[in-house]
């Protein structure tokens, strides 16, 4: 008995390791009148865990929202499934959006629904499944993310870690092709963050999903990401591409080096000025 390649299984994607699932070309994006980044280009390989890195304020979350279609880019292209996502009409973009799963910072659970209802809602809205099937899928997704209690609890009654897990289960509810994670380790203790990283890694391997994550949590970046892009707030563009661990070991750009080694660049070292710093 041998196992066959699957669409969603890891085996399928390993047949095309270099095949990009998402291509970003010369993207410029921002909020209102403010341009945050310009001329950002990168490919996200199918089945990879791709990191969007950079210091606070460099536009990581803005890029994520642009990739999700929540913000219109100023220029450039986002190619998914052979289509320029940016030039599509709203209906088509919404259709494509259902192939994405998103975990926002803190979970962003709908507060009027229980944990299980949060996971069930996308299935109720976008599938024709009957109630028993939806219940079975909800139980499966919550079980996959390790939530064995609190399924009937309201989000306000869950701990931060549990909200993260429910958010992840909700993101997985429609079996997405790409899972977007916005600061998944934020608010988690180191052990929980490690467990969460392992879970993401295992789910990626199991479902064969592509994961795009925004993070500046170095252990997470080094532990699970195998590709990435580094955004720079000063030059307003991407200044490095590659796996975080590779950038740490090989990239000589002072901003990237400072970020990866947690050392401020020499020109940022100043004499302490405040009375607090003087102690």
């Amino acid at each position: 008995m041998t196992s066959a390649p699957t669409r969603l299984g890891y085996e399928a994607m390993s047949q095309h390791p270099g095949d990009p699932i998402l291509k970003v070309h010369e993207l410029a994006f921002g909020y209102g009148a403010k341009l945050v980044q310009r001329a950002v280009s990168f490919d996200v390989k199918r089945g990879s865990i791709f990191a969007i890195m950079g210091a606070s304020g460099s536009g990581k979350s803005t890029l994520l929202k642009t990739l999700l279609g929540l913000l219109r880019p100023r220029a450039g292209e986002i190619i998914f499934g052979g289509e320029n996502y940016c030039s599509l009409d709203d209906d088509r973009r919404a259709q494509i959006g259902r192939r994405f799963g998103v975990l926002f910072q803190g979970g962003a659970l709908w507060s009027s629904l229980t944990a299980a209802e949060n996971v069930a809602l996308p299935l109720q809205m976008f599938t024709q499944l009957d109630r028993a099937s939806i219940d079975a899928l909800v139980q499966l997704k919550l079980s996959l993310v390790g939530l064995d209690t609190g399924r009937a609890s309201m989000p306000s009654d869950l701990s931060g870690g549990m909200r993260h897990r429910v958010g992840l289960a909700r993101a997985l509810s429609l079996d997405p092709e790409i899972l977007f994670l916005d600061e998944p380790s934020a608010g988690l203790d180191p052990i929980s963050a490690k467990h969460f990283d392992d879970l993401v890694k295992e789910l990626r391997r199991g479902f064969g999903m592509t994961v795009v994550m925004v993070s500046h949590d170095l252990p997470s970046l080094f532990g699970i990401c195998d590709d990435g892009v580094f955004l720079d707030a000063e030059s307003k563009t991407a200044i490095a591409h590659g796996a975080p661990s590779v950038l740490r070991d090989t990239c000589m750009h002072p901003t990237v080096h400072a970020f990866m080694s947690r050392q401020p660049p020499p020109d940022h070292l100043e004499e302490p000025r405040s009375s607090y710093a003087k102690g």
Partner: protein
Amino acid sequence: MTEPLTGRGWLARIDGTNMVLFLSGEWTARDDVSRMQVTDSLVQRSNIQALRFDSSNLGHWDSSLLVFLSSLREVSRRRRIVFDQTGLPPAARRLLALLLPAAPPESVVPLRNAGIAERVGMRAFGLWSDLIGITTLIGETILRTGAAVRGRARTRIVDLLAYLEDAGIAALPMVALVNLLVGGIVAFVGGIQLRRLGAEIYVADLIGVTEVREMAPLMTAIVMSGRTGSAYAAEIAAMQGSEEIDALQAIGIPVFDYLILPRVSALTTMMPLLCMYAGALGLFGGLAVAVTMMNISAASFVVQLRGAVAGNDILLGLAKSIAFGSWIAIAGCRLGLKAGRSATDVGHAATAAAVSGIVGVIALDALFDVCANAFGL
């Protein structure tokens, strides 16, 4: 043999004490649901000791296959059948390993139907608790206002000014529109009745007393309850949700001085001014209807009005407006502080503030009128 040995996407063959499940084709949750629900009938066959898989013809799959396999694994565990995963795709084996063992359904305490006495009791306790909360807040308002007057409250003057503007100038257009129309409507309806008696001129008396004593404070309070009281509740409830109030308390900023006092002071201060403004516009609305529709001259209307409205009427209207403003602000703040921490709670707090503000204002108005009648005002 009554039970099926095949289904969409699978075929079972029994070889001695082994059952081999041949998985084939597409397994996607969005297309087909029936296969998720066949496991019970499938494994309830006698003398099966091991369950094995052949997935060589399995096509695309997603969570629906996992639901099928996990429930099959659970049934096998219960029936002590060996669940041999080796024939499954490695990715499916990994995901099955992640799945927690089936947990018993969470024990939810069934909601018992409470009896009438119990419901009345619970409601009474709830009302009593609310009454204590409101009374505490009123007492605290009085005490802290005294401290504020002596310059000993931690209220920021810039906040107070912002709330004064919001409860004053920003509310003028809405208050003006409502009271102008109410004045006109009262004059029109009253004038029609008085015309039957040939006493149209008394429409000035009707408008004067009604507007100054009742309608101006009442309509202004209803507008401010919906506009400002609910906004206070929503703002404070949202601050609860984002832990801003915890942050204030953590660094020792008195929540009452910082959040409640400026709001209550602002609305209590602005309400009598709004009431005077509303009364003037209500009278103007009545005058406009009287002049244009009842052939009463403006001069006659004003002369009649001056004779009808006494100083006590004006004072009573202003006293009502102060009480209404305090009530609306205190109720809004109290409901905001009492709210939970979710987005839904913010909506509930805002709704409850508008409702309790309006109901409370009408109840207070009735109380004022009973007292005024008793004192001969």
